[in-house]
């Protein structure tokens, strides 16, 4: 048996320690959620390699409305069946991951940025600026979010980036309200007062001193917004206001499946919907974990 030199044992210990340190970041994270999110991100990035067929072109030689492979008449080349044009459902689902994740993430970024900028400026500058911004926030909250998004999407016309704009412009209100509340107490804290005395500009204080302190709130809200935005995107695409055909999006797939649902072609409805549920569930679980982790009071218990 070969002996391991002492030096390399020390090395292994150091590497293991570093790894453990890294892993600590995700300590206690819901494994299921992390697993689902990883699978989806991989599917979105490598869709071209993973999908067995082209998502927008009917599979050559495949039947139209073929069932999944385990049922009679199913084929292994189209494992989740084909749709009314003979396109592969699995490939469309894999490519659909892109739309859901891109809209979910960028829509959340737009909403978070608008909300954070307005919340921080309202909270820090105060006075009439605060009044105006908070009244606008109230007005936008008075609109049922989905109706407002439908209205904006209808005005902008169907495209993926228009959906991002419509949803981002609708879902910022929670950020503004919560962040403003936090900034109101932050601006009385000593480090802000000191920065003011030291002559830092208002912009600098907001960006360098206040923003880092509300970052955890932003991230928790963001993890919860992603799911809401993804469902809203699916609803808009379902109504024909989202991603235009023949591009593959889960909501659009559900809309196209409606006509054949009545005659029992269940796989066209069940699989895309299941994907929506999985991604939203995973982001919710992850968000819950993040909230507990970011809140020092909850963490130390």
């Amino acid at each position: 048996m070969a002996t391991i030199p002492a030096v390399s044992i020390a090395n292994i210990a150091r590497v293991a320690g570093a790894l453990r340190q890294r892993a600590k970041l995700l300590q206690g994270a819901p494994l299921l959620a992390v697993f689902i999110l990883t699978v989806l991100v991989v599917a979105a990035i490598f869709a071209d390699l993973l999908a067995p067929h082209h998502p927008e072109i009917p599979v050559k030689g495949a039947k139209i409305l073929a069932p999944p492979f385990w049922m009679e008449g199913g084929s292994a080349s189209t494992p989740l069946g084909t749709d009314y044009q003979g396109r592969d459902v699995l490939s469309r689902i894999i490519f659909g991951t892109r739309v859901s994740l891109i809209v979910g993430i960028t829509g959340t970024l737009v909403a978070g940025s608008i909300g954070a900028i307005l919340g921080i400026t309202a909270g820090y500058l105060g006075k009439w600026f605060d009044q105006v911004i908070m009244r606008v926030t109230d007005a936008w909250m008075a609109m049922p979010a989905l109706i407002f998004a439908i209205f904006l999407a209808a005005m902008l016309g169907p495209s993926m980036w228009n959906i991002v704009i419509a949803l981002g412009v609708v879902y910022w209100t929670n950020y503004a309200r919560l962040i403003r509340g936090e900034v109101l107490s932050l601006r009385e804290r000593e480090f802000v007062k000191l920065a003011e005395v030291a002559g830092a500009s208002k912009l600098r204080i907001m960006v360098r001193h206040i923003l880092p302190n509300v970052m955890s709130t932003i991230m928790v809200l963001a993890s919860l917004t992603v799911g809401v935005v993804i469902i809203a995107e699916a609803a808009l695409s379902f109504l024909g206001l989202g991603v235009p055909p023949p591009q593959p999006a889960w909501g659009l797939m559900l809309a196209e499946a409606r006509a054949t649902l009545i005659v029992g072609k269940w796989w066209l409805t069940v699989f895309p919907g299941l994907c929506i549920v999985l991604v939203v569930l995973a982001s919710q679980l992850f968000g819950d974990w993040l909230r507990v982790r970011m809140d020092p009071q909850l963490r130390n218990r």
Partner: protein
Amino acid sequence: MRQFIVRRAVYSVITLFLLSITIFVAIRVTGGDPAQVMAGPGARAEDVARLRDEWGLDRSWPAQYFSFMSNVFTGELGKSFNYGIPVRKLYFDRLPNSLQLALAASIVSILVGIPAGIISAVKVNSWWDQIGKIVALLGLAIPSFWLGLLLMLLFSVWLGWLPTSGKGDLRHIIMPALALGWFFAASLLRLTRSSMLEVMGSEYIKLTRLKGMPEHIVIVKHAFRNALIPVLTLLGLNLMFMVNVAVVIEVIFAWPGIGSLLYGAILQRDFPLVQGVVIMAGLMIVGVNLIVDILYAYVDPRIRLTR
């Protein structure tokens, strides 16, 4: 109290004013020529001209806003392109159907959410509570319109028990009510649970227990009653939301409510109608919020003094 009501009412008016500006501006900045946008691509030239004239689009923005608002205030909400009759009439023809569906969905959410919330709170951390937590999580994660499609698959296609769509007898309302009520049941469950937990930990519940009351009387008569106020508020607000956010459910089940009216209006690019429905939604919610605020202040004097 009067001062409080006046202040709240002024806030509500400001909110509505900003809302109207938002809608007004959104229509004018999202497209090129608003008349062209509203009439849609490939519209007849006389339609575009009629719109420009009707909405006064060649005048300045303040003048346009004024005519837009006078349209709202006279209660006509403009004239629908597609039906050629005032939007208000279309809206109020459909409103009872939407209210019916919202009421049925509320009943579903009450029957599921409140008992489950009470059980979760009474048996905290038991496996009942775990089931409750899973239901609450799935309520957020399962899109209500997908649930509607699944119900249709199960009850109409496979079992053949319920009609797929339309409005008729009681059997028509079951599936849309279940699909719409599902999300709200989950939110009601969460609120009932947390509100019950808060009350159960309070001093007077300990006292009633010390007095030797049987546990079920403590829970039902003393705890639940006090936990009810926030729950009732949520129910009222939910009812209002259900009327307005049921678009996709109504489309799936061909329910002739406001949601399907809005959807049809979008497909036909009937913009006065779209705008009218959106304005009414905002009006309704601002109104209900105002009423809730006033009722709360009436019940709890601390609220009207602190604000």
